[in-house]
């Protein structure tokens, strides 16, 4: 490690991975509830388990981003982190807030949680992904501000490279967009309009800046390619991301009240949204092929290239499949959405976090530039198992979605099956999806195991000297 203070990333990464594991456990629970509708009812109803699954996802990704920032910003800026103490304090605050929130979801019915946390004073609960009690949201804002201050001061103190400037822009954008979660008008249409400012402008906006800069950082370090080439690519990628993604928000405004011109604007710009992901893939592959050094961390390179591909497939291709208004009219709110959502989140954001963890953890743990070869092999097994499982999850859900549209949406009223009847027809897909989910869990276990695989041990013969 270039700077001691980069080590503050470790608790963030470790906790992120723990939350990831828990997220998958709850994913399997909700997946099972899809087919055994009263599984764990009434103790953990579906909405509670789902809330835990989605909230854990967001929080572990945030922990991962913070860890990534703490690791790469001192190195890019060429100075120590402004305050390691602050980073550690914020870690515990955020972790506590997260644990308490999830506990709240599981231990009491949601209405009780809302009453207990005095939601009525300033209601922000009860929207998808924003189920956290208002007080927890405030905690998140405080943690984010502290985090931004810490890394911001570091960047101001040191060198401002393209990578850390774009990362800062993304992180600041993340924090600013989150503030919209505090806006909860009693008008549903307005509520939804601005809800998407948090969700879309995160995952199809500022999070892409974060992802791009982390990817660029890892590629520079592992390929030894001229920084200037990489930085130019990064500018182009994030330019395309923002140019397509900002107006691309319109693809969420088709059916919730705004005027019809959004059908055109949203379709056109969001159809172009795959472009930055495509570029990231080409960028990653290009750099790896043109690399000027053989970096020992092969696993990190695999993750980097895999991120590009899966993000492009999940976010780009699957997104495109249902982004045009005429198609979306039929698929809006169906299993197609779920299919796209899973692969996009995993491919873009889960994998970029796993990439930076794969790159940085051996260094932070003092193993050197890479984990031992055996560990890397296990890690790469984890990569393939998880990634292929996710592809299958997505394929099965896509199948389910197509059938759902065929049965429930396409026919006229009267001929169409009801939602519940349609679900009964989709059961096979949901079982297969659950199976793929179990395979994903196995991949995750494999991935965790790789952290504990050491060097080849030598057996020492003991000689009995008498």
């Amino acid at each position: 490690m270039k700077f001691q203070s980069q080590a503050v990333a470790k608790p963030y990464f470790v906790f992120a991975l723990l939350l990831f594991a828990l997220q998958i456990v709850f994913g399997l629970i909700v997946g099972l509830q899809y087919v055994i509708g009263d599984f764990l009812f009434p103790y953990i109803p579906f909405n509670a388990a789902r809330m835990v699954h989605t909230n854990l996802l967001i929080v572990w990704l945030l922990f991962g981003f913070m860890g990534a920032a703490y690791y790469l910003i001192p190195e890019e800026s060429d100075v120590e982190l402004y305050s390691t103490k602050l980073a550690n304090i914020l870690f515990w605050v955020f972790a506590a807030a997260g644990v308490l929130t999830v506990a709240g979801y599981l231990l009491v019915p949601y209405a009780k949680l809302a009453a207990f946390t005095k939601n009525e004073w300033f209601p922000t609960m009860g929207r998808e992904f924003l189920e956290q009690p208002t007080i927890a949201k405030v905690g998140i804002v405080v943690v984010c501000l502290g985090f931004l201050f810490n890394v911001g001061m570091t960047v101001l103190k040191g060198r401002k490279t393209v990578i850390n400037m774009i990362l800062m822009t993304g992180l600041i954008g993340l924090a600013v967009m989150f503030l919209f979660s505090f806006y909860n008008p009693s008008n549903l249409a307005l509520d939804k309009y601005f809800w998407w400012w948090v969700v879309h402008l995160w995952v199809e906006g500022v999070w892409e800046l974060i992802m791009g800069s982390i990817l660029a950082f890892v590629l520079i370090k592992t390929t030894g390619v001229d920084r200037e080439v990489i930085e130019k690519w990064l500018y182009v990628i994030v330019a395309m991301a923002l140019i397509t993604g900002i107006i691309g928000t319109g693809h969420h405004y088709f059916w919730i009240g705004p005027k019809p011109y959004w059908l055109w604007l949203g379709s056109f710009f969001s159809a172009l949204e795959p472009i930055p992901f495509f570029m990231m893939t080409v960028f990653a592959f290009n750099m790896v092929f043109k690399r000027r050094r053989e970096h020992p961390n092969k696993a990190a390179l695999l993750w980097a290239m895999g991120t590009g591909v899966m993000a492009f497939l999940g976010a780009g291709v699957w997104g495109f499949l249902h982004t045009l208004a005429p198609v979306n009219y039929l698929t809006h709110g169906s299993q197609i959405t779920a299919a796209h959502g899973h692969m996009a989140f995993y491919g873009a954001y889960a994998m970029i976090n796993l990439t930076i963890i794969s790159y940085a953890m051996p260094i932070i743990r003092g193993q050197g530039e890479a984990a031992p070869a055996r560990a890397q092999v296990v890690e790469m097994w984890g990569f393939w198992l998880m990634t292929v499982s996710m592809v299958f999850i997505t394929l099965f859900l896509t199948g389910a979605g197509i059938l759902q549209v065929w049965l429930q949406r396409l026919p006229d009223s009267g001929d169409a099956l009801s939602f519940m009847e349609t679900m009964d027809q989709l059961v096979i897909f949901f079982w297969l999806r659950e199976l793929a989910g179990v395979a994903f869990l196995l991949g995750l276990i494999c991935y965790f195991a790789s952290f504990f695989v050491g060097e080849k041990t030598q057996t020492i013969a003991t000689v009995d000297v008498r």
Partner: protein
Amino acid sequence: MAEVFTKTAARNIYIGGSVFFVLFFLGLTFETTRSLPQRDHRENLTEAVAHGKMIWEENNCIGCHTLMGEGAYFAPELANVFDRRGLANEEAFKAYLQGWMAAQPLGVPGRRAMPQFNLTVQEVNDLADFLIWTSRIEDNNWPPNIEG
């Protein structure tokens, strides 16, 4: 020495493009928020409807259902449940909803289960008002059919 795409040019496109589209988006937002009251029939947004939204949120209905296609995909779409179960009759719908909410959970083994939320009569009526209002938002004729 061909003039290729330089880093400066890339940087300028990034900054210029982003700023332009942010401003454009803000302009569109302004227009949308201006024209939304007509489309969502703001005049009908009564206390009851607002209270109904609050109940919807505090019981996390979105955790299983979709509303205007957004939410969880475990349970049916509810933006048009007024049409589906109330047949566009407000009294009928309210009565239906009272019965439905009181009857949960249905207790059918293996069927996706809905919890008992212990809502008062007033709360259920407000919830109904909220769903009725929602169904009347002009949303470019979505969903395609009555099943949502």
